[in-house]
């Protein structure tokens, strides 16, 4: 294992200390339980947006804490969901009274820990809602699986809903927007190499010199299938078409209604010709941005050929899997509300514009 780390048990803690040292104008870090939060939290009258998940996906989520995006982020151990007390303490620290929205990537661990956290926050009298992000079209059904994973759309939803909260949306409006933006987003990922969790000390899986893993998530879990490596254009086209041609997707999610967990059936509608989208080409960590441009070039062609108009884009390493080489593509249908909040100013270590 070759990493710029010291002792394995200290990896996440020291990285957080580095963030705190580097970005004290934007954020602070609380230890035990660990969470990153806005330096100016709580922001009076504003709904607090909180996300979190295993570490190893940086800059997500800690790097997205700041004006116009997250109020707090809760990092778990590497690739391990955080614990409810982290989200609970973070909620208490950033809640201004306007309530807290938890943005939860759909992994069993994240879902369960955030549900417990919501219960704890609600018991404390904090208005709270949990919205799931589940956009990975590599997972085909939700009946025989834990449902689609939360991947690239997470970054976009955090930006969009963060801006809406900044603009004065209340908790229900933020939740509605998050649910909508999630339903508008679809993603797919692939890997050229594996990655090594420090505590494990060896790669999660092995790939041959001419192999790639297609349909991966973001936790180094093996993908849907292993394939011979093909040129970037072919990979991009396969992934883009899986996203663009994905059918309606229905699943049941648990959300809070009047303090009770209720099951809701939600359906994402497929893309259609004429849709405007935000296109997000993401590096899994080890792939340099230059290669992402080769992917974007083809993605733009495939979108054009299918009547999908890219109106904004984001290209770079934003939701990663440690040092894994590979990339993911996300398309998110953009209506006026979404575009307005996408374009709004954001000032975080990982994403910044307009300020």
């Amino acid at each position, binding site marked *: 294992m070759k990493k710029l780390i010291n002792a394995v048990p200290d990896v996440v803690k020291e990285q957080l200390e580095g963030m705190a040292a580097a970005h004290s104008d934007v954020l602070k870090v609380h230890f035990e339980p660990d969470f990153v939060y806005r330096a100016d939290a709580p922001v009076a009258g504003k709904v607090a947006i909180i996300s979190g998940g295993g570490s190893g996906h940086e800059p997500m989520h800690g790097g997205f804490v700041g004006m116009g995006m997250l109020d707090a982020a809760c990092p778990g151990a590497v690739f391990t969901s955080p614990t409810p007390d982290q989200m609970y303490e973070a909620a208490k620290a950033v809640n201004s009274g306007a309530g807290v929205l938890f943005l939860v990537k759909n992994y069993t661990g994240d879902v369960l820990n955030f549900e417990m956290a919501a219960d704890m926050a609600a018991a404390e009298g904090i208005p709270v809602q949990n919205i799931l992000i589940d956009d990975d079209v590599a997972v085909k059904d939700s009946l*025989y699986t*834990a449902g689609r994973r939360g991947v690239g759309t997470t970054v976009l939803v955090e930006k969009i809903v963060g801006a809406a909260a900044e603009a004065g949306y209340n908790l229900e409006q933020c939740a509605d927007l998050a649910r909508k933006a999630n339903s508008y987003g679809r993603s797919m990922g692939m890997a050229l190499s594996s990655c090594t969790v420090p505590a494990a000390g060896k790669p999660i899986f092995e790939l041959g010199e001419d192999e790639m893993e297609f349909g991966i998530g973001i936790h180094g879990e093996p993908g849907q299938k292993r394939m011979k490596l093909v040129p970037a254009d072919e990979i991009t086209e396969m992934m883009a078409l899986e996203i663009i041609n994905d059918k309606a997707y229905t699943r049941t999610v648990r959300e809070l209604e009047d303090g009770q967990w209720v099951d809701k059936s939600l359906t994402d509608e497929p893309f259609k010709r004429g849709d405007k989208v935000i296109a997000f080409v993401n590096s899994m960590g080890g792939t340099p941005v230059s290669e992402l441009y080769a992917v974007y070039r083809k993605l733009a062609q495939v979108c054009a050929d299918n009547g999908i108009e890219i109106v904004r884009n984001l290209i770079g390493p934003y939701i990663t899997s440690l040092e894994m080489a590979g990339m993911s593509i996300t398309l998110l249908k953009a209506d006026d509300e979404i575009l307005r909040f996408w374009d709004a100013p954001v000032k975080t270590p990982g994403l910044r514009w307009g300020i």
Partner: protein
Amino acid sequence: MSTVTKEQVVRWLEATAAVLEANKGYLTDLDSAIGDADHGTNMDRGFKKVMEKLPTVADKDIGNILKTVGMTLISSVGGASGPLYGTFYMRGGMAADAKEELDNNDLVNVLQGAVDGIIQRGRAQPGDKTMVDALLPALDALKAAVAEGQGAADALAAAVAAAEQGMKDTIPLQARKGRASYLGERSIGHQDPGATSSYLILNALLETMRA
């Protein structure tokens, strides 16, 4: 002997911590085949914390001890197994409220509450290739043995045997819950890490009873 004493519960937890530490690499290897290579570290981290907390509650009743274990796991494990095992001990502890020892019926109630808790939280069904596939057969075997009038140690032995079988039976299953479900058919042929830790936990109780 047909009761489990509080001291035995404490030694069971100590034995659990030891066995999970010893099997940390094994569980993580199982999890890297169909998951994300952290189940061993997760469980070890959690039970190390339990060992830190245990002295502060070792003189409380069994219900209290188990609930403390549950709370500790919830706030230290993370992942899927944190809330699941956390709920397991919390709900087991609720079934042992104020008890200083557990007779056979208490034992059944504790395991029943614990397993119900996992199922309610995780919504896994038998055959989904999860810890439930080790725990439910164990619960059924325990109930049957207790109904037959067997002593605690024998009944537990039957439960552990059933857990071990259930654990092995996860190998041919296709996962439908948790991270492994994303692998679809590629999850077939691998033993479920959570079912394995469940077996190890129950077996630690049996060995404590036998010691």
